[in-house]
């Protein structure tokens, strides 16, 4: 009896139906895409441990180039800039994560309290616009403001009787400019995510609160914010997982790759790109390798910590 049941069970497990073949065929193009563009590069990472030469066929290159162990990493971490680049990458990201959660949540709550629905829609639409501008366009806009001889900011300074500032040569302003631009570009997006959640909150909660005499501030503190927690945590995990990645466009395009801004605007992505272009492949691949490894570890541990604290909020 039991063997029969087991047999039928196992037959059911290995039974491959016609529709399984069809579904596999349907997924095949995307599966090939994943193999070529996601999984092959993962194996390609071995070049971080090799003395890779750019010539001819990729596979023969990988097979023929000699193993150098951790030499590439040694060079990377021994270089004087390693500290500056790590500081920039993580420092900016910590600021972006904090401001990127606090400000959109604050403005989403504020905009949900406006009396006029129509006006709030208009503001939302206008504030979403920078999200759709490419960094090349933003860099052109930046040039219109910061250019030394024609820039709008310098004309403004001149009209106040100040000297013109050569913005692209003065590193002290750029941390603020970069932080401002990052917030400016992403605030509309963040605001809409949180606002969608706020408008989804059951209005009876607020009615009950009003009957109990709760003020707007108390309603926000005890109803809106707790309801937003799940989304906030999710956005947090996503951004912490990308703490070793930065927006290449922001740090490379907007600063116009100015050498004077090297110390305040070089992040891991910029380093990797520049080295790739100057054909220092060993160090570039070592840097990219460290970046993906650390990125993977951070996203998994952020998720693990969140799971420990509150299992419902975890993503994976």
């Amino acid at each position, binding site marked *: 009896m039991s063997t029969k049941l087991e047999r039928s069970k196992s037959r059911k497990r290995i039974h491959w139906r016609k529709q399984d073949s069809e579904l596999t065929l349907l997924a095949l193009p995307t599966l090939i895409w994943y193999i*070529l563009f996601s999984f092959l590069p993962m194996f390609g990472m071995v070049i971080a441990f090799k003395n890779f030469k750019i010539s001819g066929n990729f596979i023969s290159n990988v097979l023929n180039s000699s193993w150098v162990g951790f030499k590439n990493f040694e060079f990377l971490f021994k270089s004087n800039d390693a500290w500056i680049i790590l500081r920039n990458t993580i420092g900016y990201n910590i600021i972006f994560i904090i401001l990127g959660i606090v400000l959109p949540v604050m403005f989403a709550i504020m905009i949900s309290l406006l*009396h006029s629905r129509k006006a709030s829609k208009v503001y939302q639409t206008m504030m979403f616009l920078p999200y759709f501008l490419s960094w090349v366009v933003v860099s052109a806009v930046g040039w219109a403001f910061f250019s030394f001889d024609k820039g709008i900011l310098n004309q403004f300074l001149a009209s106040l009787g100040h000297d013109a500032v050569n913005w692209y040569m003065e590193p002290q302003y750029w941390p603020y400019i970069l932080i401002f631009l990052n917030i400016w570009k992403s605030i509309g997006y963040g605001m809409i995510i949180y606002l969608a959640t706020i408008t989804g909150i059951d209005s009876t909660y607020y009615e009950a609160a009003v009957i109990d005499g709760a003020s707007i501030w108390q309603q926000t503190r005890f109803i809106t914010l707790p309801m937003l927690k799940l989304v906030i945590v999710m956005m947090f995990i996503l951004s912490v997982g990308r703490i070793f990645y930065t927006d290449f466009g922001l740090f490379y395009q907007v600063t116009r790759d100015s050498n004077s801004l090297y110390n305040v605007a070089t992040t891991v992505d910029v380093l990797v790109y520049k080295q790739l272009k100057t054909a220092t492949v060993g160090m570039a691949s070592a840097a990219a390798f460290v970046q993906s490894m650390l990125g993977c570890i951070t996203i998994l541990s952020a998720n693990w910590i969140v799971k420990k604290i509150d299992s419902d909020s975890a993503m994976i």
Partner: protein
Amino acid sequence: MAKTPTYQSGLEKFNRTSNGINALFTLIFILMAIACVVPVIVVLSISLTDESYIRETGYSILPTALSADAYAYIAKQGTMILRALGVSLLVTVVGTVLGVLLTTTMGYVISRPGYKLKNFLTWVVFIPMVFNGGLVSSYFINTNFLGLKNSVWALILPLAVSSFNVIICKTFFRSTIPDGLTESAEIDGASQFRTFFSIILPISLPVLATIGLFLCFGYWNDWFQSMLYIDNQNLYSLQALLNSLMSNADALARNSISMGISFAELVATMPKESARMAVAILIVLPVACAYPFFQRYFITGLTIGAVKG
């Protein structure tokens, strides 16, 4: 029963923030909204300003000495711009169609409960979300192994699929399409292809629109792939063209049909500053006009993505 709505609206009114706070918030949002739109106005006004005026007094937020020279120049000499526009359009259209197909098929397949390879494929989609090969390795695979250097496919293929979009699709199919629908199609003898293309896709317009729009704007705004893989000026997209104009405003002249005049003359007569911004307008204007109409689809997409899959 009839009393409830009046009570509710009354409550809402009673629960409003005070007029003072409302005015303050409104002011803050008006200022922020203006700050977000200013860039487009600046770019537009520079593109419409007379070149000699820019040379004398610099850029300005509002157009002062109006002139359409830059656009006239583009229309007259702009083979390079027209080609870049063509590349941008081609990449956007082909990329969006291909991306939607690849994304929705995978999303559909891993949303089918009884499918044998479901777990395997779900891992295939999931792993790249936490781990990737990095820029250097991808670059060498794409150029040396797949031979995509200086090919229009380098602008299309790497961006076609994102695991995030696949998960959005999967969540959508899982939550909105009843199992009975696919089962009955199966009983009627429809193949999975037929079921997917003639039953599932037509009723999945919201998610198709969402994914399609994400892809469409992504392709139109992409400049990084061009920077990595394209050296051939004939394959420049609008973004790549603007990028090269930002570092060298003469780049346009080099590729223009010089109608009997020398290169030096051409460079001297072309409206460099305003032409640069006119190209930016060619990029921005379609986006700025289109996105308000599609905003609700984006919001759908963002909120589907925000729900745990």
